[in-house]
């Protein structure tokens, strides 16, 4: 802790041309925020695929529950304790469910939204040479790596991986006698604890950087909405993750030290876990959606060649969502036997939180209204976000109503809701973001045709998979069950389940197009200039990819980020750092006689 950094952005150090750092310092143990962002990108894409594979395993089982005529593909490679004679054992199904959720939420979506884009975009969009604490940033990635190793290790230990759901409720997650899992559960707990530290370090960095290192002229209300969203998300991470860490530590102690924080027979309180977990868990879902909203705002404005409708309202809406998000957590616990008055207050606050989300939706529509819309791949994915997020939000309103939740809690209605917001929402936004910022990251464009095909297939299959789940859930299909046919009232829905699985396999297959596009374009994509999307924010004023240090001279910001189709510009965009043209001062108004 030696050099005292000043509060201003300072002059950038650009090492373009003669960067004499070793390969290891440049690409492995790098303190450059861009490299770290790309490291997170590759790590999270791997986990996205793994999470998808787990979902495929689940869907196979649900399509052919315990059916020897349809053995799980690849099941013969797995030990008999997981898959016996091609049949998925219930304990293994529980692990698949648990690890699908855990990996998607903690190792795919969160790192993709925050680890990648907070790292990559923030310094570029605010005009800074790097993050406030570059070495802490490097530590943040390299701490995520052991967490990733631990979570993978759980698949290989005796007893299999954690099987108590991604929410890991005790006593199930504590008593191996109930779940049959011990080592896997402990590894799960340890991994998330370590990942929490990684997230916290990142949050400290993002907050300090946005507050203190904005370039001259970059006032708060000239910040791009992507940066605003990532900044607010960082605050949520900062204050929510420590509560989860505390809860996980207590869980770990119960698992390995023989304490009884959550064990009821020794005086512990399982509900304590639920409160602590969901106090984190609800801000967590806003962590999973806010950055996506930020990216969508950028891309829709760009694709519509229009300013974002109601920029200030968008900011205030995001702030409101982040405030309200702290007082709704009980809606995950409506069926826990809480005092009905308490339940009612959580219901009220949950309903209210729909309002700022709706404001944002109308503003996205307002942005597109009468715009000169370019339906490029990022734009298509961003538009899908808006539609799918609305559907997910609407199903959320049903769940928010306490009496209705009695019927819907822990059913596939919830599964539909979460996938409409997390896949229909966050993941489409991620596809949009990856495609949009790919040229900046790698200097090449992704293939537009492949992008459109991938989008179309994903959009159609996604809806075919998840929309029927609303009906399944409201008709009583429970979550996390490995064999629905054991319940008489669900047997009639088996054709629906099978159909969903077929579409799910198609959905997964369609992702191969994206994967191919991504990797092929890394090497053979059309070379990109600094600003292929004709956008306004500061990152598009740098080369593609930007050099170490980002800007040759510190940019000066003259205007907001969404001056598309501005009368001040000859083109339909006007970068934030383009100096204003000299115009003669208008002649003063003639003063009326007698005035």
């Amino acid at each position, binding site marked *: 802790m030696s050099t*005292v950094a000043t509060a201003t952005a300072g002059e950038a150090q650009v090492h373009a041309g003669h960067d004499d750092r070793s390969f290891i310092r440049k690409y492995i143990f790098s303190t450059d925020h861009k490299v770290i962002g790309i490291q997170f990108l590759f790590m999270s894409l791997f986990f996205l695929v793994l999470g998808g594979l787990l979902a495929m395993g689940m869907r196979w089982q649900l399509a052919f529950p315990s059916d020897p005529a349809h053995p799980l593909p690849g099941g013969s490679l797995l030990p008999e304790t997981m898959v016996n004679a091609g049949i998925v054992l219930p304990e293994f199904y529980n692990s698949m469910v648990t690890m699908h959720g855990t990996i998607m939420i903690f190792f795919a979506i969160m790192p993709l939204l925050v680890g990648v884009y907070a790292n990559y975009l923030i310094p570029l969009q605010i005009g800074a040479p790097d993050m406030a*604490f570059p070495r802490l940033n490097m530590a943040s990635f390299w701490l995520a790596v052991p967490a990733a190793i631990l979570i993978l290790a759980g698949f290989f230990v005796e007893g299999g991986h954690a099987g108590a759901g991604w929410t890991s409720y005790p006593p199930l997650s504590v008593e191996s006698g109930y779940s049959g899992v011990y080592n896997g559960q402990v590894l799960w707990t340890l991994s998330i604890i370590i990942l929490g530290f990684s997230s916290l370090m990142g*949050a400290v960095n993002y907050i300090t950087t946005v507050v203190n290192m904005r370039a001259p002229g970059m006032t708060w209300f000239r910040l791009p909405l992507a940066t605003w969203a990532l900044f607010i998300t960082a605050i949520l991470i900062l204050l929510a993750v420590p509560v989860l*860490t505390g809860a996980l530590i207590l869980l770990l102690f119960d698992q390995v*030290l023989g304490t009884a924080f959550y064990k009821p027979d020794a*005086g512990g309180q399982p509900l*304590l876990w639920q409160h*602590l977990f969901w106090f984190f868990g609800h801000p967590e879902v806003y962590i999973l959606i806010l950055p996506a909203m930020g990216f969508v705002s950028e891309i829709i404005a760009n694709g519509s060649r229009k300013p974002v409708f109601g920029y200030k309202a968008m900011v205030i809406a995001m702030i409101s969502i982040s405030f309200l998000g702290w007082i709704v957590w009980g809606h995950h616990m409506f069926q826990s036997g809480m005092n009905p008055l308490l339940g009612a207050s959580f219901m009220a606050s949950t309903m209210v939180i729909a309002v700022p989300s709706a404001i944002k939706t109308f503003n996205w529509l307002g942005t597109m209204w009468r715009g000169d819309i370019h339906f490029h791949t990022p734009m298509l994915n961003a538009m899908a976000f808006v539609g799918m997020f609305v559907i997910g939000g609407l199903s959320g309103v049903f769940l928010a109503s306490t009496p209705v939740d009695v019927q819907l809690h822990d059913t596939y209605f919830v599964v539909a809701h979460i996938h409409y917001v997390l896949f229909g929402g966050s993941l489409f936004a991620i596809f949009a973001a990856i495609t949009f910022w790919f040229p900046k990251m790698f200097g090449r464009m992704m293939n537009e045709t492949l992008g459109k095909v991938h989008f179309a297939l994903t959009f159609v299959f996604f809806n075919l998979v998840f929309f029927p789940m609303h009906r399944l859930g409201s008709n009583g299909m429970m979550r996390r069950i490995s064999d629905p046919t054991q319940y008489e009232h669900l047997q009639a829905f088996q054709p629906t389940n099978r159909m969903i699985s077929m579409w799910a396999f198609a959905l997964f297959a369609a992702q191969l197009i994206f994967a191919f596009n991504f990797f092929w374009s890394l090497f053979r994509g059309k070379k990109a200039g600094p600003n292929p999307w004709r956008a306004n924010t500061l990152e598009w004023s740098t080369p593609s990819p930007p050099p170490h240090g980002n800007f040759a001279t510190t940019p*000066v910001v003259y205007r907001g980020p969404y001056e598309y189709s501005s009368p001040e510009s000859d083109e339909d965009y006007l970068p934030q750092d383009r100096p204003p043209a000299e*115009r003669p001062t208008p002649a003063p108004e003639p003063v009326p006689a007698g005035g």
Partner: protein
Amino acid sequence: MSQAATLALESRQPMPGIGVYNQKFGMWVFLLSEVMFFTGLIGSYIILRFAHPDAFTEPGRVLNVPLTAANTFILIVSSVTMVKAFASIELGDQRGLRRWLLATVLLGAVFLSIQGVEYVKLAEHGFVPMVASYAAEGAPLYGMTFYTLTGFHGAHVTIGVLCMIFVTVKAFRGRYSQADHGGVEVMGLYWHFVDLVWIILFTIVYLI
């Protein structure tokens, strides 16, 4: 001046930011996360005690309150020595900086030692966190919450002492000056925070 030139001139002002340098702001931001962490633990303690008041005893029945009160005082004194170290280097007094930093390290170590001694004595009386081997007064809940709360605080103090040694060594090497001593200030913030948490913890765990 033309509109454009005015706009250009105004835009060139550096952004005010939060008004303190990055490292200090970063430490404050980190400490906010620590507030949430300890709140989670303290909240757990409160709810577990609320649910089973019979499992917890009055102050003094099991825990050695006078000894810990003295230990609290020692930690407060270490905050004073820390702040005097900072005050010294603000005036450019290198000898004062080194003296007071050394004192802080020693007092921090004393605090930990006394706490360690207290743990050993309690364990000898059977007051341990594990359910299975619990023998002393007050059901398992008391032991596990006590050790978790004070243990995590102690872990934070330990990390603080280790960092403080690092800062002290740097001070002895003359690496801080009147113009550049952010490292001392930031270390001080962490140390005072650890003291502050103890003030709350001591009250809740030992006195209430």
